[in-house]
């Protein structure tokens, strides 16, 4: 077994036993990873709004306190919404978890290095923002404990998972926003909610 992590396998294992988990997938590779792991109406993949994935997670977590919410996003997307970590740290919803799939690059735009490639530590930022827990995962052996923490530990929790920077085949979710919204509402709240 190699000592490096690959994003598709990481996200697949995070979502392997998702049951009634609600998932927000951040713009770009993180959304493709979630789709490759198996598309679900209870995944809301974002095709825009870069920097707001964690806030969608917060809104969802506050609206549905009885359900676990997992935001799966990339380092570039998370860096654009650093302030949202402070906002989440004020609210401290126990049911919110964030997995940052950190390849240290902007994968969709030509693999330019992000701030995390220069040592910016998102887990430390999250701890500074009053997250209940946050840490960095670098090796395969650390992944299963991290998955259990993301799905079960009291949030807000952030796990920054270092993965190999690689260009992978696109696995695209549906892209019509109204359809993504309505399928989520229907799966979560039933037929009438999706008619709006």
């Amino acid at each position, binding site marked *: 077994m190699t000592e490096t992590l690959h994003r598709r396998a990481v996200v697949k294992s995070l979502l392997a036993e998702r049951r009634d988990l609600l998932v927000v997938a951040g713009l770009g590779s993180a959304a493709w990873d979630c789709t490759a792991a198996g598309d679900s109406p209870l995944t809301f993949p*974002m095709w825009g709004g870069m920097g*707001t994935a964690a806030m*969608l997670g917060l*809104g*969802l*977590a506050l609206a549905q306190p009885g*359900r676990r919410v997992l935001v799966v996003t990339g380092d570039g997307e998370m860096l654009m919404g650093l*302030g949202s970590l402070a*906002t989440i740290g004020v609210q401290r919803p126990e049911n919110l978890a964030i997995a940052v799939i950190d390849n240290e690059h902007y994968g969709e735009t030509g693999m330019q290095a992000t701030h995390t490639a220069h040592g910016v530590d998102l887990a430390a930022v999250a701890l500074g923002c009053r997250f209940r827990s946050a840490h960095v995962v670098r090796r395969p052996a650390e992944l299963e404990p991290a998955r259990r923490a993301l799905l079960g530990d009291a949030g807000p929790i952030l796990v920054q998972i270092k993965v190999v920077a690689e260009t992978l085949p696109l696995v695209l979710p549906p892209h019509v926003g109204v359809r993504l919204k309505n399928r989520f509402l229907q799966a979560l709240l039933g037929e009438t909610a999706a008619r*709006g």
Partner: protein
Amino acid sequence: MSAADWPQEVHGALKGAGVRLVGYVPDAGHKQLIELCQADPELHSIVLTTEEEGIGLAAGAWLGGARSVLLMQSSGVGNCINALGMVRECRFPLLMLVTMRGEEGEFNPWQVPMGRATRSVLESMHVTVRRAEAAEEIAQSVTAAAQLAFDRGLAVAVLIAQRVIGIKSFQEEAAS
């Protein structure tokens, strides 16, 4: 009810519209309304670092079945532009209450450009704009805007004219 009681009327209008979450970046013009929302155990108030966060918050809340409102001043509208593209594409209902700056009585000239652009920026991003020119109109405008947002699935902003807020100097603001 006197004209000065508009924050109380708006608070009632928001409750009547079924709003549960209140995202805000503070503005002096929203001071009383924010305090009323914070004191209300049925409302969840969320202080934001930037207005753009509020767009994500509102979208996520809607996905979870909750109605929300965003309070901000006009300068914050500029911070929301790209996120409003998501609102448009997904047709998320959105209710924004925007206190205007850069208008009559403004003491800070740096507020003027964004104040002038607020309406056109919102309309460019397909947000329906309503404007309240007097304190007595505000709660009614909010109720109508909430219906457009939550029953018809539109993004709607109510702009509250600066002369309603009436802050004319740093001294007055500091003393308020």
